[in-house]
């Protein structure tokens, strides 16, 4: 199948489903809770993480034979931190209001365990191309969950998608609100993200019984 061999496409597809970093490995939860109240920041966060993870995995993989093993964790940290600062600066320059909205969470990509986890577990031991695919795959797996959670939280919590009032105007009582529908204010708060992630985990494991641990 052309560009990707079977083994390579597994690197992309696995994290999307049966080895998802959030729902199966339960990593990167804190940012998944914090920034998913709306769709737009969720997507920007997903793209930022994809950049950091894709490029980071490549850089680490290129350097894997020259990194002194004694300080490899520090080297990984420096690579993540550098890439995150680049993302932060670029957002500040080209998407200022968005970077204000995401505030500390861009900086906190540094502490996203998925990234360091992939550097340590995959990029240090694999070739550049495969590491790149692995990074993109895991970032996609992370991003998909973020977007699903963001979709439901924005829709049910604020009645909007990307800021558009898809359910009608809650103040002027049009659309769904005319028949007595109310926004669920709880959806906007972080605890609800955890519950949505929990529901995704539930659905996923009931469809694929092999994922259930004893």
């Amino acid at each position: 199948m052309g560009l990707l061999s079977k083994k390579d496409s597994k690197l992309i597809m696995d994290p999307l489903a049966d080895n998802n970093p959030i729902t199966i490995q339960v990593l990167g939860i804190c940012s998944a809770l914090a920034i998913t109240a709306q769709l737009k920041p969720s997507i920007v966060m997903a793209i930022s993480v994809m950049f950091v993870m894709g490029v980071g995995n490549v850089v680490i993989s290129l350097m894997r034979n020259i990194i002194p093993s004694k300080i490899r964790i520090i080297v990984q940290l420096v690579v993540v931190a550098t890439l995150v600062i680049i993302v932060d600066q670029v957002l500040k320059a080209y998407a200022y209001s968005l970077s204000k909205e995401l505030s500390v969470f861009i900086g906190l990509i540094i502490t996203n365990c998925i990234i360091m986890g992939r550097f340590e577990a995959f990029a240090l031991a694999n070739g550049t191309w495969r590491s790149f695919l692995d990074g993109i795959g895991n970032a996609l797996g992370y991003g998909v969950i973020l977007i699903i959670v963001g979709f439901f939280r924005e829709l049910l919590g604020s009645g909007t998608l990307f800021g558009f009032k898809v359910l009608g105007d809650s103040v002027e009582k049009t659309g769904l609100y005319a028949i007595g529908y109310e926004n669920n204010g709880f959806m906007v708060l972080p605890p609800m993200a955890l519950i949505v992630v929990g529901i995704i985990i539930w659905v996923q494991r009931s469809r694929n019984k092999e994922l259930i641990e004893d």
Partner: protein
Amino acid sequence: MAIDTDKNSYTIIFSIVMVVVVGSILAGLASGLKPLVDANKRFEKQQNILYAMGINANEGTSDVAFISTDEVEDKFKSTITKQYVIEGTEASENPEAYLIDIKKEEAKAKDSNYERKLPLFEGEKDGEPIYVIPIRGKGLWDAIWGFVAVDKSMTVQGVFFDHAGETPGLGAEIKQRYFMDDFEGESLFGESGAFKGITVAKGNADPKNQRKTDNAVDAIAGATITGDGITAMIKKDLKMYVPYFKTLK
């Protein structure tokens, strides 16, 4: 040629090279993007000032909406006719007044010999002059700041508040319209003519904010300390402008 990556000397050289490379990349990037970032900060400030004056993209009961960054600079230049720096009761025109960092002025003013520079922006609204005053104070977790637009007799025409890190859903609500809109029309002076500021009051007998002369607006439930911070910064910072406004009458 195999390198012995376990040697201490190698580790040290590797770290030094890494730090130098990373440092130069980031320094280059930061200074390359600085003009853009600075412009964004300036636009934001201009948007905030114009917002306080009632020039914004609000529609009906919409959320806070600024005028777009593309047109804000032109709009700012055409709306703000004069910018002053006030020292004591003396005001001198200074087109760069909006660059004054109130935080730094506040720190310098701790030295009692220092005459604090107060920036003031003058514009026009419905044929009347309108003045915008920047204020700054402390919330619960971090700094809060804002802009207050007043007319010649120091009746509030509009406000804008922002914060660095107040609690979402509680203190952070100070930048929502339902809170900021309440300030419109409030007087800063009591009935005796003495400066009283505006109190963010709990248990306010006037929750719909019909009375504009009570020097109070309704507080946000659960945001007592942020509200007190707003009360304090209005009292403290606007008071410094009173001598100048007295000379306008």
